[in-house]
C-alpha cells in the first residue's frame, strides 16, 4: 500500500492525469487522425468541411487535385467513429448516400475501401488528392495529419475519437 501511494504521488507530481494507482487500467483513448498526402497544402479543416469531403459533396482540393476518399472496411472501429462523428450516418445510410451520389453523377468518384492501416497509409502516400483516417497511433511520417477544428489529435479538444470502453 505504501508503495502504491508513493507511486500515486509520483504520478501526480509528474503532471499526469492518468488517475490513481488503484483505478483499473483504461483502454487507450485513441484518436482518429485525418490524413492527407504530404503534398496537400491543407492544414486544417472544420468538422463541417470534413463532412462535405467525406460525403463526396466536395470533389476537389483548392489546389485543383481531385479528392479521393479512403475508407476502412465496414465494421472497423475507426470507420464507425468517422461515420458517427463526421458523416453522422449509419453504415447503411452512408452506403446508400454514396450509391445515390454516384448514380446522380453528383459524386464524381466512389471511396476506396481498404482493410488495413498500412493500406490506407500507402494509398494516401501514393495519391496526391487522397484523404483518409487512421488511429493516431498508426500514423507515420509518410502522410500528413491535418487539424480538425483547429486542433491536433493529441490535443484535448480534438473532436474525433474512437469510443473508449473502460476495461473490467
Amino acid at each position, binding site marked *: 500500500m505504501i508503495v502504491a501511494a508513493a507511486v500515486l504521488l509520483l504520478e501526480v507530481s509528474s503532471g499526469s492525469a492518468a488517475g490513481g494507482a488503484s483505478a483499473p487500467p483504461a483502454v487507450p483513448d485513441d484518436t482518429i487522425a485525418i490524413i492527407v498526402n504530404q503534398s496537400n497544402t491543407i492544414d486544417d479543416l472544420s468538422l463541417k468541411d470534413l463532412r462535405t469531403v467525406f460525403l463526396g459533396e466536395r470533389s476537389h482540393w483548392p489546389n485543383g487535385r481531385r479528392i479521393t476518399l479512403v475508407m476502412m472496411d465496414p465494421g472497423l472501429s475507426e470507420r464507425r467513429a468517422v461515420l458517427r462523428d463526421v458523416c453522422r450516418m449509419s453504415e447503411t445510410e452512408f452506403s446508400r448516400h454514396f450509391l445515390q451520389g454516384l448514380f*446522380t453523377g453528383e459524386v464524381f468518384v466512389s471511396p476506396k475501401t481498404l482493410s488495413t492501416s498500412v493500406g490506407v497509409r*500507402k494509398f494516401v502516400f501514393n495519391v496526391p488528392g487522397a484523404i483518409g483516417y487512421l488511429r493516431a497511433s498508426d500514423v507515420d511520417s509518410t502522410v500528413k495529419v491535418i487539424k480538425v477544428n483547429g486542433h491536433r489529435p493529441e490535443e484535448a479538444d480534438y473532436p474525433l475519437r474512437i469510443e473508449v470502453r473502460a476495461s473490467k
Partner: protein
Amino acid sequence: MKSHTIAPAECVFTRVGSGWTKRLLPLALAVLASPTCLLAQGVVPAADADKQTIQMLLQRIEKLEARVSQLEGTQGTTAKAQTVSAKIQEAPRPLSGPAASPAEEAATSTTAQAQSSDPEQEMEHLEPERMDMSKTLLRIRGFGDINFRGSNQKGSTNSFALGQLNLFVTSDISERFKFLSEIVFESGPDNFYNVPGGKRNEFGVDVERYLVQYSYNDYFNLAAGRYHTAIGFYNTAYHHSTWFQTTTGRPTLFEFEDSGGILPIHNVGLSASGRIPSGPLGLHYVAEIGNGRQSRSPLTEEPVQNEVDENNFKAVNLAMFARPESIRGLQIGFSGYHDKLMPIALPRIDETILAAHAVYMVPKFEWLNEVVLIRHALDGTSQVFNTPAFYTQIAKRFGSYQPYFRYQYINASDHEPIFPDVRRMEGPSLGLRYDASESVALKVQYDYNVARHQQNYSGLNLQLGFTF
C-alpha cells in the same frame, strides 16, 4: 515510420516516445505493485512485505530501464527509416502504376529482418491490385424491379410485370474524366401519348444515359452526351432506378417519354453544373443545351433526338438550387427550359417549362414538393396553352418500414397541341415500403385516379425492387 521489430505489447512505448515512457512507467509500476502488495500482506508481517516488495520493484525497475534503453535504440533506427522515407517522398514519383510502399522502401534501407518478420508488410504484398489507380475499370451496378399489378380500369388485366433492368455502368477514364451510362432492358411496348409502339411482352434495350463527364473543380463540371434534363428534382434524383424511389413509380408528371410522359425527361447535348460560391446558402447551378424533344404529332417513335434534331433551335435549360448548410436535407430550387417544337400540320410552337421544388430529405423522413408549368405558344397566333402540374409526397421511416402518401395533379387543355391525350388527371397514392435488406425493398401501393372525360379507376401495385 512504424517500428517493425517490436512485439505488439510493447508498441505503446515506442508510439508515444520517451516523455510518455517516463510517465507511464510509474503507472505500470503502480498497477503491478497493488496486487503483489495485497498478496504479501496475507502471509508475512507488513514491514517484511514492504522490504520484499521494494526489492522486487527495484529489480523490475532495472529490467524496465534496460528494456527502455533497448526500445530507445529501436526508435533511433526507426527515426533513420523515417528520414529515408522522407527522401523517398521528395523524389518525383510516377502517378501511374503500383507504386512501391514507403514502408517497404524504408524497411529495405534499414533491416532485412524487419521486412521478413512483420505481418503488416506481408499484408501489403497481398493487396497490390487495390493500389493500381492507373487502370480504367468498368464498374457495373444493377437495379431492377418485378411487379404484380391490378386495376379496375377498362381493358386492364391483373399481371405480373417485369420492370426495368438497369445496368448502371461507370468508369474513371482519368482523374478529371469519367464515363457514366444507364443501359436499360425493358419489356412491353412503348407508349407515346397513348400511341403504342413495339410489340407487347417483347424486351427492348434503351441507352437512357450516356455521358462523358469532365470535372474541373467544384464550381465547374461539364458533361456531354445523353442526360436527364435538370427540370425539377425528381428527374435527376432517381433516374431509372425504382429501388431508390420510395414509391413504386415516378409521379405521372415525371413519367418517361416512352411511357406517355409530358416532359422532355432526356436530352442530348451538353450540361454544365457546379457550386456557386455562396457560403452557407449552398447554391448550385445547372446549364444545359441540347436537341430537346421531338415534337411531331402523333409520335410513334423515339421522342428523344439522339442523333438528329428536327430543327436548328436548341433546347436550353437553366436551373439553380440551394442546399442550406443550416438545414441539412433541404433543397429548394427552380428551373427554366425553352425549346422550339415543330409538329406536323401545326405552326411552330414555343415551349417554355418553368419548375420549382422544395424538398426535404433525411434518412428518416422525406417530403417532396414540385410544381411545373408547361407553356406552349403557337407562333403567329395568340393561342397559348398552359399546363400546370404538381405533386407532393411525404414519407416517414419506422425502422425497415416506410409508409408514404402522394398526391398528384396535371391539368392539360383538351386542345393542347402537343399532348392532347393527357387532359386533367389527379389522385392520391398510398403505400408502404419495406426494406427487407440493404438492397431489396418490397412495396405495396394503392392509387386512385380521377381523370376528365374518363371513368375514375384505382389500382394496386406490388413491387420487388432491388439493386445488385
